[in-house]
């Protein structure tokens, strides 16, 4: 056996070895990427949103806007208080309601309701909204996000479960007033 042959055989081994590792690596990459992308693909979760009770209608007097809280439908046992979400419930006239997300449509800070001036104000960057959730002033480009609601047996139900953000408000704009 010439040394020339030995060298080329060893070079071949290196190439084969690299190819083999490449194949195994690709094989490994598939589950790793799927694991990393699980919050996007949501294979194990049917849906983030579901109908939740905010309690009896008596808690929300007509013509008033009240703070309500609910436990997020998708939570882990170690989520603690972060699984409790607040929202604003506006009882327009006992027939119509508006359920506003707590998150400002600008950058998600918690808006506060001022019944005296009938405004929602945001403490972060100064956004303000009218009582119907439409934009009044400040940096927000649209009105407050709204959750779909229904009333069953004297209980107010809303469809919620995902934090609304300016880029993914599709499911929370029910009846929403967008500002252009």
């Amino acid at each position, binding site marked *: 056996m010439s040394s020339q042959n030995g060298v080329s055989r060893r070079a071949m081994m290196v190439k084969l070895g690299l190819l083999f590792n490449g194949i195994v690596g690709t094989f490994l990459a598939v589950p790793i990427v799927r694991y990393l992308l699980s919050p996007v693909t949501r294979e194990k979760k049917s849906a983030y949103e579901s109908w939740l009770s905010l309690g009896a209608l008596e808690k929300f007097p007509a013509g008033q806007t009240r703070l309500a809280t609910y436990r997020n439908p*998708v939570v882990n046992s*170690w*989520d*603690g208080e*972060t699984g409790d*979400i607040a929202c604003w419930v506006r009882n327009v006239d006992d027939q119509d309601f508006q359920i506003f997300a707590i998150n400002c449509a600008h950058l998600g800070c918690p808006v506060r309701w001022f019944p*005296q001036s009938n405004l929602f104000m945001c403490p*972060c960057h100064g956004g303000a909204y009218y009582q119907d959730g439409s934009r*009044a002033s400040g940096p927000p480009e649209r009105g407050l996000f709204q959750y779909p609601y229904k009333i069953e047996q004297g209980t107010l139900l809303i469809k919620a479960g995902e*934090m609304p953000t300016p880029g993914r408000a599709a499911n929370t704009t029910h009846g929403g007033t967008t500002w252009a």
Partner: protein
Amino acid sequence: MGLIQRVGEWFDLRLQLGAPLRETAEHPVPRETASWFYVFGSAALTCFMLQIVTGILLALIYVPSAGEAWNSLQTLNHDISLGWFIRALHGWGSNFMVAIVLIHMVQVFLFGAYKFPRELTWIVGVFLLLVTLGMAFTGQIMRFDQDAYWGLGIGASIASRVPVVGPWAVSLMLGGPIIAGAALSRFFALHVFVVPGLLIAFVGVHLLMVLKLGINEWPMPGRVVRRATYMQEYRELTHKQGIPFAPNAVGKDILFSGFILLAIVACAIHFGPFGPGGKPDPTIIQTAPRPDFFFLWLYALLSLLPPSAETPILLIGPAVGIIVLLALPFVAGEGEKSWKRRPIAVLTILLIAVALGTMTHLGQHTPWSPVMNAWSSEPIPSQYVHGRTALERRGALIFQAKQCHNCHSLDDRGGQRGPALDSVALRLTEDQLIRQVIQGGGNMPAYGKNLSPAETTALVAFLKTLRPANQAPARDASRAVALGTGESVARP
């Protein structure tokens, strides 16, 4: 032969590190670089090592769980001996590290250190700045309080605005539908594994290049960098006129690092740890979230940008900034190094410093935010109600009750979202006041639906009294013309 020397030789026979280490320590450097201007890089590294040590110490207690993180921080602050001190060291070490990295960057920029052949050293340095800021941001989330919770919300809202992939980016960032345990866990992984790993790797490459290429020489006006001749010129500076790095230059590095460590300890003892603030309970909405010091300028920018320009500037601005920094050594790889011959470079630094300083100052005072409790905690100054009619005083009450004070200041008290109203009657006539209150505009909500006609009348009556006693109120000149009274003719 002493015992220590014998043990040392035993190890060196096996490790064989003594000679290369000595050679590295004593490598020749240009004489003028043994200067107090050349100490910031090593000081940044010292801060980083302190962060590693204190970070590991904190990890002994800290629980990266949304339900428990805040409690474990309280335990660190109150129940563990000197836990507060370790937290304070880590927090202040972080601030010092960001500050020193920025100073280091300004120094090497003004000294032209990014020019040939140190382009890659600068580029790695830019990545080091980014990962350092990444550590500061993810670290703020480890302090899992209200600011961290709503800060994540702000991050998610910005990420969601990325075209097409925005919603996916939010899901990836939060690891779930809401800000909760999954979000904290992934930022914990970033803060203790991923970003520090990158930081260590970049620091290694950065240092290696400083050793291989040599420290940047002291820039002399007129000594111009040319690719063809620079290496030879630098060789002469180091090998003919240079001095060994140790002990001639390293002394200032060691002294300054010690001084920085002492300053961090002093701040930690005097000011104590940062927070945690309120519990990360999103149902507690009486909060005004605010980022840490080094992100306050961004907080101000987000408030002051016009709404329509915000998304493009937010998404494109950082990319442009990073590209400019990365392209700098390729655009200006040759030429003058001395700041004395580079006025644009000096002006750029001054401009950025003034802009960031102003924005940070604004971020600390948040003049754009309504003062949420001014209507109930800041009374109308007595001189504005003294001797007024009943209607005007009724207007002052409405001014408080309708939260006007949250956005408008009187006698420097109250919000600064809208203009101060101490002399509003000089600027607006009665008709203009009514119109502004009812219709709003210019970033003021319309109050037409929220005020009865009687309330509006009283409020405007009060606003009409807000002017210095010796100055005439605003008047509508065209009205006088229309009525033919001739009063509108301008008097000299």
